[in-house]
């Protein structure tokens, strides 16, 4: 076993509530509850919570990559670089965050499958996007910003 040091990984402390991921369980599990009010349409919130955590984590990972990408001195035209390319490519390695990379590997499927991800796109928009494959990377980037 090799002992590896990632000095830039420790103490990621956003001073404000920047990442939803870190406060998700507070929003879903704390806060005031009034018994006669119902949590409509949130049937299965316990399962949902886990799914939402995965999705939010994934999206936040994208966002962190996007932010890191902005700081990087990229050789390529940044306009042609999509976040998924970055994750598969060299940027992920140079950022060197083991955990982020590990999370990112499973992102693609999860974002599409789990709750919240797909739903942010209006259903009626989908056929339009399919007919315009040239805009594929554009829609991916929009999901990242969603």
């Amino acid at each position, binding site marked *: *076993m090799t*002992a*590896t*040091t*990632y*000095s830039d*990984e*420790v*103490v*990621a*402390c*956003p*001073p*404000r*509530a*920047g*990442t*939803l991921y*870190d*406060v*998700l*369980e*507070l*929003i*879903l*599990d*704390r*806060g*005031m*509850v*009034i018994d*006669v*009010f*119902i*949590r*409509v*349409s*949130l049937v299965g*919130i316990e399962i*949902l*919570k886990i799914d*939402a955590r995965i*999705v*939010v984590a994934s*999206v936040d990972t994208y966002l962190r990559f996007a932010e890191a990408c902005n700081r990087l001195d990229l050789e390529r035209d940044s306009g042609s670089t999509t976040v998924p390319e970055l994750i598969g490519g060299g940027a992920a390695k140079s950022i060197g965050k*083991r*955990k982020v990379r590990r999370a990112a590997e499973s992102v693609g499927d999860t974002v599409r499958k789990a*709750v*919240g991800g797909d*739903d*942010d796109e*209006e259903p009626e928009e989908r056929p339009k996007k399919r007919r315009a494959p040239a805009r594929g990377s554009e829609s991916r980037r929009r999901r990242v910003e*969603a």
Partner: protein
Amino acid sequence: MTADGVYVYAITRAGTALPEGQGGVGSPPARLRSVRQGRLAAVISDAPPDLRARRRDLLAHQDLLMRLMDEGPVLPMRFGMVAPGEDAVLRQLAADESGHAAALKRLAGCHEINLKALAAEDALADVVAEDGTVRRLRDAARRRPGYEASLRLGEAVAAALARRASDAGRRVLRELTPRARAVAAGPEVQGCALNVSFLVERDAGDAFLAEAHRFASANRGHVELRLAGPLPCYSFVAAEARPVPVGGG
């Protein structure tokens, strides 16, 4: 009033201004309104059909509460609370007006800061150097490599990392507690040795965060600390405190 009911974001003091340009949950963002009952008001909107815990809606809920906090004390509702109608909201405000008013008074001028302690996974070298069991298992695994030996070594490493994080978590909790007005355990989160929220006075927020960062830097080989805040006081809407468990120890 709509067939889908009324989404309730927060209880505030009567007369608390709604933040300009801020929408609620749903797409497009629902229009916010405030309904008043005595000394209290509730911030509500029509509940969107098909409400779920989407990222967009979670952020809308959270962002609104953050902005409301700039206007005065806020009792944040848990995400997804929907009342059958405005009348039901008003009845609830009236039913416990003094209780809610007291809670608002208690939280005035404060916000929540959440702290999570996770095992510092890059502390492997330290663990091998310091932990006798790990060292012994590592030597054993080198002499006789195999699945079983690897499994035992890995298990010992994981346990050692968790123990270091718990110890550090206990220490940081001890150091920060005197700086907070109240402390509340957060929900259990997988991988966290400690998940705790502090109720911190607004003016003391920077000093609190600085202290937490100082501890984090000094103990980076033992624990990864994740701080979030200032936040709405989700964990302090109830008067009674929850004991803080420190896991993995």
